[in-house]
């Protein structure tokens, strides 16, 4: 104990005495493209002191003067070793070559980044993009979020959806960052695809706990997605044509060695494929029915990524990131019927649009060899506009005159808008090899505009019969959010390392200010050179909520801020685990316990179309807790790569506060409470022309509320006074639901297989991808619904109550063609 205290004191004094040291600093980049490498390790092999490059590839390492052997390593790249006589601080830039041995299965130097056995970071996984791109995908569309769903501790919503439920948290509790800027909706096609175009990505890291203090604002996870800067020496690109979408990616220098660009665009063409089919079926239907019918439906999405990066003489980098993506779903039908006596017209129009717009400017500046600054200004917007209009009019013709004209108009509109304007500064300071300090601040000006409008009107002639109008929200709400953080990744002794941090945040909305202090601690004890134990504790706060009708990601979901009544969500998470870097394998086992406060759920029977005029009246505020064990084995190098993950978990909710009672105040399982979750993914590269990959997923079914016991439900009625039955029971037959989420849907499992055929062409490489999603056609439930089935029993019609599951992806073969140049 005395030795530990002594070493801490020595470490503290080392900051003060850092003047006796000299510093090497610089950038680590890919030798071919000049692309900065994030998380590359720089180590003095004599003292074993090291540093890790940041998001711009910058590193800083302070050492005692003398002869040094500096080893720079990064997964998938050749190690770079340089012997130097270090007398004074100097700038050293390293350019690493991609490893050819990597694919051949040779052992590559252990990755000394923060995520392995040597780092303090736990509950985080970096998924290699090569692995993501080789995973079999729905309709051939590679998807980052789908790949993350295969990791332990991460669960999907319903079949096909891109929702993420991390360690018992809800899908709104994930902070999704694109180049450090939050994206509020990451889903295309109702959640079946995500907005991340894999061609534009450089690095994807998922944090499920042990959150570094630099991240905040969401309770359950951080998904940090970094985009490619672009090749600074040559032009490269790819064109990919799939079953439902095509995409193109081009990157290269604007000014060689200085300014780069990276552009990628993607668009679906379901609407274009469908158009001639609709035209033909419309003609045949009109011929068959003789009615004047018109019906069109359409759906498309697109996204566009653009990144410009400029390198200044002094090594500073400036970058501009732009993203826009929209989904459009539309349906229109018109029906005109007329007889000699009657004329009727029906029309229905549905127009749903939703999407994101993001732009970001960053300036990365090395203030000195030990201090690096990131300055950013960002704008992010999510908007959805969902409108449906229905009109029906009919009248009788008597002697050529219109009589008994009835007209019904109904419309429903959802609007959700969230705009964030953000300014932030982040600093990396490495005063000594023992301390890697990060600090910074962020300010965000939020604007929300959630709203629901519904209108129902009925007229008989000119006389109104019914006129019901509901309005919910529709006002702009402004909120201010400010936060500051400080974290120190501190080597206390050669075997003990800790990351100590704190984040403080303020949130002001509607005249109310909330403050939060969030301590973050994680520690690693290195027991052998490749085996460590880690423990962490973190608290998080979240100031926004997502009001969602279902587990699908629908554009009718609305982001709303905390209010004077609905307080910020808070979570506390403690985790502990063992980590083993076993040659080419990373093995880990973690256990976690998490509590969540001020989580919201819809009240029993609540819906937007009900009686409430404020969203606060629709929800109850309560708490939740979850715990579980996660096992993970990953092989990142060699001909065969992949991982196996298993999670045992439990997620509960309780709403027992006055005015917020659900389920009579008793605890109930969360909708995504899944006991077992197993996923395996493997890719084997046979040779340079062919690779084969497969996924297997098994998960306990999601939960839902289902009445499976018929009872006569009684409702008190009032009868004549003086009668013994003054109050009497009215009996209705209902399906009794004893508690919320009482039913577990059937288990989910599937096997996907994919293969890639590579061929070198004159100007590039051609890749054919063939994927079969759900190869044994397991009908995994998208939804389970009760229904009445009527059977003919020897001429007698008998009805029975049955359960039906609806699956959307029984088996889905797909292919895509990619040409890389």
């Amino acid at each position, binding site marked *: 104990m005395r030795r530990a205290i002594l070493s801490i004191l020595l470490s503290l004094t080392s900051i003060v005495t850092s003047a006796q040291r000299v510093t090497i600093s610089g950038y680590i980049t890919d030798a071919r493209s000049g692309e900065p490498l994030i998380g590359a390790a720089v180590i003095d092999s004599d003292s074993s002191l090291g540093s890790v490059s940041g998001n711009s590839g910058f590193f800083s390492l302070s050492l005692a003067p003398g002869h040094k052997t500096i080893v720079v390593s990064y997964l998938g790249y050749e190690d770079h070793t340089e012997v130097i006589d270090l007398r004074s601080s100097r700038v050293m830039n390293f350019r690493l070559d991609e490893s050819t041995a990597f694919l051949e299965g040779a052992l590559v130097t252990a990755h000394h980044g923060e995520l392995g056995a040597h780092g303090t970071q736990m509950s985080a996984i970096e998924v290699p993009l090569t692995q993501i791109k080789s995973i079999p995908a729905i309709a051939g569309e590679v998807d980052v979020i789908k790949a993350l769903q295969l990791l332990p501790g991460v669960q999907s919503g319903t079949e096909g959806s891109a929702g993420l439920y991390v360690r018992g948290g809800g899908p709104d509790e994930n902070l999704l960052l694109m180049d450090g800027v939050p994206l509020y909706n990451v889903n295309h096609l109702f959640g079946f695809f995500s907005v991340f175009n894999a061609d534009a990505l450089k690095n994807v890291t998922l944090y499920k706990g042990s959150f570094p203090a630099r991240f905040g604002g969401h309770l359950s996870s951080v998904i940090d997605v970094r985009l490619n800067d672009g090749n600074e020496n040559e032009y490269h690109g790819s064109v990919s044509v799939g079953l439902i979408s095509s995409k193109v990616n081009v990157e290269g220098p604007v000014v060689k060695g200085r300014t780069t660009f990276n552009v990628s665009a993607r668009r679906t063409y379901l609407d274009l494929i469908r158009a001639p089919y609709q035209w033909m079926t419309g003609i045949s239907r009109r011929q068959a029915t003789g009615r004047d019918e018109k019906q069109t439906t359409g759906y498309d999405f697109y996204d566009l990524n653009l990144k410009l990066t400029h390198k200044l003489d002094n090594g500073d980098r400036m970058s501009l990131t732009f993203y826009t993506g929209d989904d459009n779903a539309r349906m229109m039908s018109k029906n005109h019927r007329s007889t000699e006596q009657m004329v009727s017209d029906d029309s229905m129009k549905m127009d749903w649009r939703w999407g994101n717009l993001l732009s970001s400017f960053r300036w990365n500046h090395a203030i000195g060899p030990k201090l690096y600054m990131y300055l950013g200004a960002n704008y992010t917007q999510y908007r959805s506009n969902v409108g449906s209009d229905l009109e029906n009019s009919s009248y009788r013709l008597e002697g050529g005159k219109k009589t008994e004209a009835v007209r019904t108009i109904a419309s429903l509109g959802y609007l959700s808008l969230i705009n964030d304007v953000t300014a932030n500064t982040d600093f990396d300071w490495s005063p000594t090899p023992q301390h890697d300090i990060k600090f910074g601040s962020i300010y965000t000006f939020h604007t929300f505009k959630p709203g629901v409008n519904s209108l129902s009107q009925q007229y008989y002639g000119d006389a109104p019969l019914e006129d019901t109008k509901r309005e919910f929200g529709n006002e702009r709400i402004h909120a201010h959010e400010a936060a500051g953080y400080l974290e120190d990744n501190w080597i206390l002794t050669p075997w003990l390392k800790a990351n100590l941090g704190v984040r403080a945040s303020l949130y002001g909305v509607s005249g109310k200010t909330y403050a939060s202090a969030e301590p973050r601690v994680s520690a690693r004890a290195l027991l052998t050179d490749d085996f460590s134990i880690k423990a962490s504790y973190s608290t998080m706060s979240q100031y926004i909520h997502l009001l969602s009708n279902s587990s699908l990601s629908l554009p009718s979901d609305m982001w709303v801020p905390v209010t004077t009544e609905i307080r910020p969500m808070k979570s506390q998470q403690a985790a502990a685990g063992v980590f083993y870097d076993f040659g080419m394998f990373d093995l880990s086992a973690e256990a976690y316990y998490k509590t969540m406060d001020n989580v919201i759920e819809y009240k029993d*029977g609540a819906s937007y179309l009900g*009686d*409430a005029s404020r969203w606060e009246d629709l929800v109850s505020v309560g708490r939740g807790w979850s715990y579980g064990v996660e096992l993970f084995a990953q092989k990142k190098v060699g001909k065969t790569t992949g991982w196996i993950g298993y999670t045992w978990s439990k997620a509960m909710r309780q709403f027992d506060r006055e005015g917020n009672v659900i389920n009579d105040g008793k605890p109930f399982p969360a909708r995504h409470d899944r006991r077992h979750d197993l996923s395996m993914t493997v890719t084997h590269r046979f040779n340079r022309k062919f690779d084969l990959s497969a996924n297997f997923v098994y998960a306990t079914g999601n939960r839902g509320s289902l009445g*499976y016991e018929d009872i006569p439900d009684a409702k*008190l009625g009032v009868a004549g006074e003086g009668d013994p039955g003054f109050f009497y029971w009215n009996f209705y037959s209902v399906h009794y639901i004893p508690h919320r989420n009482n039913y577990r849907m059937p288990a989910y499992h599937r096997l996907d297989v994919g293969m890639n055929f590579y061929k070198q062409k004159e100007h590039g490489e051609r890749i054919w991808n063939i994927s079969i999603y759900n190869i044994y056609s397991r009908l995994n439930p998208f939804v389970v619904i009760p229904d009445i089935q009527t059977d003919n029993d020897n001429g007698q019609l008998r009805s029975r109550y*049955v359960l039906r599951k609806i*699956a959307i992806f029984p088996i889905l073969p797909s292919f895509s063609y990619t040409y890389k140049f």
Partner: protein
Amino acid sequence: MRMKSLFIKAFALFSLLLCTVSCEKEIKFVGHYDGDKIVLYSCAVEGLPLTADLFKSQFSFSGDRHADPRLPGATVSLEVDGKTYVFTEDTSDPEVTGHYVSDYIPQAGDRMVITAQCDGFKEVRSQTAVPAPAHAYVKSFYYKEGIPSAEGYAEDPELHFVVEFDDPSDSHDIYNLNLVRTFYGNHIVIDKETKKEEWVFEQITSYEVLRSSDILFMKENNDILDMGGISSKSVETGRIDDGSFNGTKRSFDVFLPLGKYFGKGGDEFVLDISEYSFLVTSLNEDLDKYTRSVNAALKYSRGLDRIFGEPVSVICNVEGGIGCFGAMTTRTIPAL
């Protein structure tokens, strides 16, 4: 090359065949169903003999959806202050079985335990307490002139009653309001012997339950309470929880838009309103929880709420079974 072409053709054919795969399937219920249970409904009303209705629950997927759920032949007993009262089965109507009556007449303050046993079922047990009556009175009433228009009224004339509640006790009480009106009018009566319908002109007593009535509304401090729209009141409307009292008193303005009032019905021909009074009920907490959850469940089972609403679980207080053993006390307070 030939292999490649064959492979692509086979793949295309395979893809076409898969389009025929059905994505909807009937599935078996997999879960824990712990057997049919006794469903007990009983409400102890101060001053009225206690009755109980017994049913049996049924597994929804058993296929026998039309079996009679009533449960005759059970033993039902009541325990109050150490004394036991046995219910007898009411067999007066052969079509209505499972109805049990006792000769015990509940009083305010009673604490009682009911048990029911029947062969093949687990015994059920529940307890309740009869609440104290509400301290409520009509403080005043007034008539608000309407605004006439060419077609009737642009704004209805309204009859207002100011109802005030006192809450001197510390206990948690919940109240409901019903308006009782007595009038002369036509209504249809079925002759017991001939089974024919006849129009009869006589004095009628009708009840307007604040929660569901479309002609009775309530205001507090000029805010209309829990009125989502004309035809769809909230399940909370008219529920007065003394936990919400600011101090020991709370006043409500209960009103009838008279234009709608006289226009109501169509078959009734209202000649004259002779009397108004309020029936104020005090509910115990179990009955209140049960009633609210059932109202919400019934609302959820209809229309768009079924699609967009959150499913509702019914809050029961019967150990070993399902149902509700609740209690209430009523008072009639004259109004006009």
